[in-house]
């Protein structure tokens, strides 16, 4: 411990260099943590959503609706404890530059199926009773500065016309799979305005036992296999996961790029650390003459490298962990529940240790093996 001061003094000798080195390590690990979190967040999307909820879609494709008449037939199946339906609306607000999701749901059953949608009881009551009302996620309402009770008008893109809704409630989702930037309104009102077409975009089926999900999904699909609109049923988690895979290779590219970035900055940093150690050849020779052992010098140089690498890592990883929740980052809605996973922190710490070895080992070995006589010849 008594050598701690020596290490600190060495670090303080070129304050600028130490600061720059620590800062570039911090930046590298910040970036690493951010990019890796994109991948882990996407992977984690498959963990969101209730295990007891299934989603039934039209097998022909996402854009095709299902008849509303399916509701009663699904509800009657054994193992099904609840049912609701929804339809994508795709309305545009203002100039359409700020896109947000909006869809029509069967209000009472939908809210019963999603306890994750949390809002005051009186607002929930008001929404259920107001046919032209809507509820809005807390991020969305602050984004546009809307107020409770005001009217919001959307232009329909799929269903033409101006659609005006009264903001009856503001909800906060406790599960990241449910967006906090969504406008939800009544399916009944929607159906009436499109001329009672009797369509539902998708059904949400609540089942009693998650382990029977595959069997029940198959029962539902078999039921409609020979109808005009065959269905495809899967768990809500599978549904979430399928959205993540839509990015295709892009997320893989991002993480590859992330690693290249980290490697690049670490390379430059390691180089700077090695150069600074090389300058001190004379000093190390003096320390050896005074009686410092090879082992001790090796340790001292390694500790110095480690101090810089680990401080940088702590700042970079800590910064990323604290920053994203503080600014409620969700990647413009594409990365709900974005957070830095523990595995990323561990991985990052390992990278920092690797950096310590890569940048410290060469100078430390040199220091330990330095022949005193030769080294001192260069010192005036």
């Amino acid at each position, binding site marked *: 411990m008594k050598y701690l001061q020596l290490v600190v003094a060495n670090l303080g000798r*070129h304050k*600028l*260099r130490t600061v*720059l*080195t620590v*800062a*570039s390590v911090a*930046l*590298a690990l*910040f*970036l690493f943590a951010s*990019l890796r979190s994109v991948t882990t967040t996407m992977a984690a999307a498959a963990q969101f959503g209730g295990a007891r909820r299934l989603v039934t879609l039209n097998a*022909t*494709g*996402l*854009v*095709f609706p299902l008849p509303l008449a399916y509701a009663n037939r699904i509800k009657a199946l054994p193992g099904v404890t609840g049912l609701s339906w929804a339809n994508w609306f*795709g309305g*545009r607000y203002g100039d*359409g530059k700020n*896109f947000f999701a909006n869809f029509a749901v069967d209000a009472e059953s939908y809210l019963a199926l999603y306890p994750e949608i949390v809002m005051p009881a009186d607002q929930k009551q008001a929404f259920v009773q107001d046919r032209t009302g809507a509820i809005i996620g807390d991020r969305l309402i602050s984004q546009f500065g809307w107020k409770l009770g005001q009217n919001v008008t959307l*232009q*329909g*893109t*799929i269903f*033409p016309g101006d659609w005006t809704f009264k903001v009856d409630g503001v909800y906060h989702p406790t599960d990241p799979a449910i967006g906090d930037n969504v406008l939800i309104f009544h399916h009944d009102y929607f159906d009436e305005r499109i001329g009672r077409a009797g369509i539902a975009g998708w059904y949400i089926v609540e089942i009693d036992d998650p382990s029977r999900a595959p069997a029940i999904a198959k029962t539902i699909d078999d039921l409609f296999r020979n109808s005009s609109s*065959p269905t*495809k049923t899967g768990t809500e988690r599978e549904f979430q996961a*399928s959205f993540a*895979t*839509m*990015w*295709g*290779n*892009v997320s893989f*590219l*991002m993480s590859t*790029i*992330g690693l*290249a*970035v980290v*490697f*690049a*900055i670490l*390379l*430059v*940093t*390691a*180089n*700077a650390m*090695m*150069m*600074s150690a*090389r*300058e001190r050849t004379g000093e190390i020779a003096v320390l050896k003459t005074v009686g410092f052992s090879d082992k001790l010098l090796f340790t001292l140089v390694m500790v110095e490298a480690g101090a810089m690498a680990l401080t940088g890592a702590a700042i970079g990883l800590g910064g990323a962990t604290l920053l994203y929740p503080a600014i409620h980052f969700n990647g*413009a809605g*594409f990365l709900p529940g974005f957070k830095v996973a523990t595995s990323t922190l561990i991985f990052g710490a390992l990278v920092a240790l690797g950096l310590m070895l890569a940048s410290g080992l060469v100078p430390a070995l040199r220091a330990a093996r330095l022949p005193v006589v030769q080294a001192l010849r260069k010192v*005036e």
Partner: protein
Amino acid sequence: MIPIVYNVRSVVQRPLSTALTALGVGLVVAVFIGMLALANGFRSALARTGSETNAMVLRKGADSELSSGLGRDVASIIAADPHVATGGDGRPLVSPEVYVLIPLGKVFDTTQVANVVVRGVSDQAWQVRNHVKITAGQRPTSGRAEVCVGSRLTQRFPHTQVGQTLRFAGRDWNVVCNFSAAGSAFESEIWGENEQFMPVFRGDVFQSITFRLKDPAAFDEAQRSLQADKRMTVDVHRESAFYAQQSQLLSNILSFLAIVITAIMAVGAVFGAINTMYAAVASRAPEIGVLLTLGFKPWTVLVSFLAESAFIALIGGILGCLFALPINGIVTGTTNWSSFSEIAFSFRITPLLLGVGIAFAVLMGVIGGFFPALRAARLQVVQALR
């Protein structure tokens, strides 16, 4: 001026340190070029899709083909419009189209599903879209359940080769041809006859109507007259402008990411360059003292060290270009969130992009070298020579 050869030799004197710094800069440049090539490739795939000479009709307010719907009456009004060009056989070059998305399992993992565009076109579509070329097989025959598959799909989805049978919408479809379309988004689509697709998908409704303009310069006039027509409520877009707008969301995301990531990286790399150059200046203090004693002005020392730093960065920039070049042309796929469809495109590195990459490297070198060079220029001769 201090001859540049002094700097080149100094750099060669410490190969390891130079190589590490240059490699660091090179990786930053490679990532920079790579990410912009991705955004570039996506944008240019969609930009090539639309043609300047075509106009596209959607229902008023629809922001994509998916959300649009037009009846047969609209199709016949447009076919009769004087702004529409006519083909060799005297028929108007109009293609009323059915546009839907279907889920298809991928070749390597059929549980990974992508939303692929299925487009029902008229006979004239193959002339309206004049960059579409049949690469294998024969065009679908009117009245039969036959489809033509875009060339980007054949590698990535099963049952898409000529002679195979593709199943969707509860029916079997014979794949009778493959087509290419100059690298555009059409290559990620499946084409068939619109009359065949209407009954199996959304019924008697088209999603868009594309026609060749008789006079491409008269687009504004055609747009005005069609939008003013009381018999229908439509928006008329120039096809090229429509697809450019479809690419905006994703290409903005990609460019934004490229800039944020490379900006953070660049700062880190500049810090590294500063350190390297400070160390270089410190270890060469006596040399600098000699230069100053010989009568070189301090500002020439400044320029000399800046040049040295820029030179190392330039090596890095060239390395970065070399690292990035192999990805040119690699095909990747993602979902275009504006249309919700899967689109395949290739990384596109242009000479301009390489030039920007090298300029970016040199800039990093100059910024990173400035303060160390300033220190070198301000060295006191007596002190430096001790």
